[in-house]
């Protein structure tokens, strides 16, 4: 905040007076602007920092301690000990790898499907309003129900998937889907894509809706075909929305927990164990809060890095003046 204001403390009554001829201090437009900016930003800052700041600091500090759960437990400072222990653990790296696999596949599918569906809606085929309305449904079903529902669809003896494939003649025997080590993660990915793809579709569709129609028409007149219009005209303009959807989904997919907890409990044989699940296991059932905190930080480092990478490559700031 600009220190020049300190010399002239604000007069609340003056400032809130509705009279149109109240005296104005002589501030440059830029300074006035900056002050407005602070006023606009402060309520949000207060909420976010007020709630999250201390817990984040607490967790950060805890990650440097050996901190077993308990009332009379002694916490010993171990410096980077927790981080080193994690980095030396094979399970940690396998889990990071698995989580990356989940994230890339899940987000990739969601972005592609979401874009396709958003574009489809944008073309206004018959029933497009109904389609857009129905998109909300998978997203509105709470994750708990989503997990239970997919668990049951994948059920070996009673599941709809087996029944459907059997009737379509694709399989001869019912398959115990969730017990197959290499298939388990794709199944979780499918459940997550079904649930979250609407989010991407709706963001992109809203962004498409605000694009000026003239650009598209002008390009058509200039002889650009449909694909060129999409790739060279619409896509770049959608960049901010794509960036938001991409980062939001990537960060959330990397930290996925709920759906794995309900659908597979990290099985079979840890094949669906994700990094947040590992963090949960350490912090709660296994009572190792120092490690849990260290893992949280490692996760944050990963997600921040990913977000920064996306921003680096995709962010083209608009003019702000």
């Amino acid at each position: 905040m600009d220190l020049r204001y300190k010399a002239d403390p604000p007069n609340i009554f003056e400032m809130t007076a509705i009279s149109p001829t109240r005296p104005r201090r002589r501030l440059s437009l830029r300074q006035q602007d900056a002050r407005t900016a602070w006023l606009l930003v402060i309520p949000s800052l207060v909420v976010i920092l007020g709630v999250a700041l201390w817990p984040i600091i607490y967790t950060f500090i805890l990650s440097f301690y050996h901190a077993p759960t308990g009332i009379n437990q002694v916490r010993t400072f171990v410096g980077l000990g927790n981080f080193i222990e994690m980095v030396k653990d094979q399970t940690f790296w396998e889990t990071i790898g698995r989580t990356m696999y989940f994230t890339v596949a899940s987000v990739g599918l969601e972005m592609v499907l979401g874009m396709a569906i958003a574009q489809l809606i944008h073309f206004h085929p018959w029933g497009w309003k109904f389609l857009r309305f129905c998109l909300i449904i998978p997203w509105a079903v709470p994750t708990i129900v989503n997990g239970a529902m997919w668990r049951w669809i994948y059920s070996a003896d009673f599941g709809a998937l087996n029944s459907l494939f059997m009737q379509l003649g694709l399989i001869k025997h019912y398959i115990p889907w969730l017990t197959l080590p290499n298939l388990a993660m794709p199944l979780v990915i499918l459940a997550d894509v079904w649930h979250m793809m609407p989010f991407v579709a709706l963001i992109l569709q809203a962004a498409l809706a605000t694009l000026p129609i003239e650009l598209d028409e002008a390009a058509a007149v200039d002889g650009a075909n449909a694909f060129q219009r999409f790739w060279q005209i619409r896509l770049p303009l959608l960049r901010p929305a794509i960036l938001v959807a991409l980062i939001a989904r990537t960060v959330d997919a990397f930290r996925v927990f709920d759906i794995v907890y309900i659908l597979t409990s990290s099985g079979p044989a840890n094949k669906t164990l994700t990094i947040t699940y590992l963090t949960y296991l350490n912090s709660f059932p296994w009572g190792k809060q120092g490690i849990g905190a260290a893992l949280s930080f490692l996760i944050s480092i990963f997600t921040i890095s990913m977000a920064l990478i996306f921003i680096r490559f995709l962010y083209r700031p608009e003019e702000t003046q």
Partner: protein
Amino acid sequence: MMVYLKLLRKLLLFLFTLPVFFFIFFPVLWLFSASLSTQVELFAIPPHWIPQHPTLQNYLDIIFPSLATSSVPRTYAVALINSIKIASAVTVISIGIGSLAAYALVRIPFRFNRTIQLGIIATRMIPEVSLILPLFIIASSLRLINKPIVLIVTYMSFALPYAIWMMAAFFQTVPIELEDAARIDGCTRPGILFRVVLPISVPGLVSTAMFTFLLAWDEFFYALIFTSTLAAKTAPVAIAEFVGRYAVNINGMMAGGIIAALPPVILALIFQRYIVSGMTAGAVKG
């Protein structure tokens, strides 16, 4: 000939929408079918796509609590109302204060602008499970456990950063010329925000509101740990209660799931037209 081609195009597009509908609805119809079945029917082999003995009992147990034998359905309606209250409060406040911050961060140059942007996003990077314990300690010492306010405030701390960031992206797509024109006409910065940018960004705001609402709606772990009784219990926690120690009341859970999906869907229906109205606004050039 042109008309014929146009019709063909429409037909082709429609054909593309069919698989999308199937993908969306196949699980949902199954969900719906389960909610109308009894447990024994659910596990019939081969599965009955349409229940042969459909029953509304699962829904009745939830909607008319006095008929229920188990306490779980009885409490569900209350939990649902809690969810609605909490998610609405989170959404309204987040959009309210978040839109202000979002605009300031993308359009107004000031010191620490970049820092604040990064800081806001960074707070969202930590997995929520990690923050539960310290938050619980704070909430407990403030005697806020099991009150809706604690969930509202906690959810805002994760919903706000996203809401701000999403709205910022939408604000960025508003042509800068419109703002410049307003400035020339003598508008103050706040004036630009409220009179030019916000009205045009309605589709974006509505999308953000939907996202925020669903974020709060879907949240489970915090609701589980921070609430104990119906005073503040939310729908996902109530649904989790359909999971008994060993056996899951799947039919009840599916019925509960359908009912839980209704409020967001109804809200989407109501606010759909605001997304539509934005389309024409975007075409206006200054």
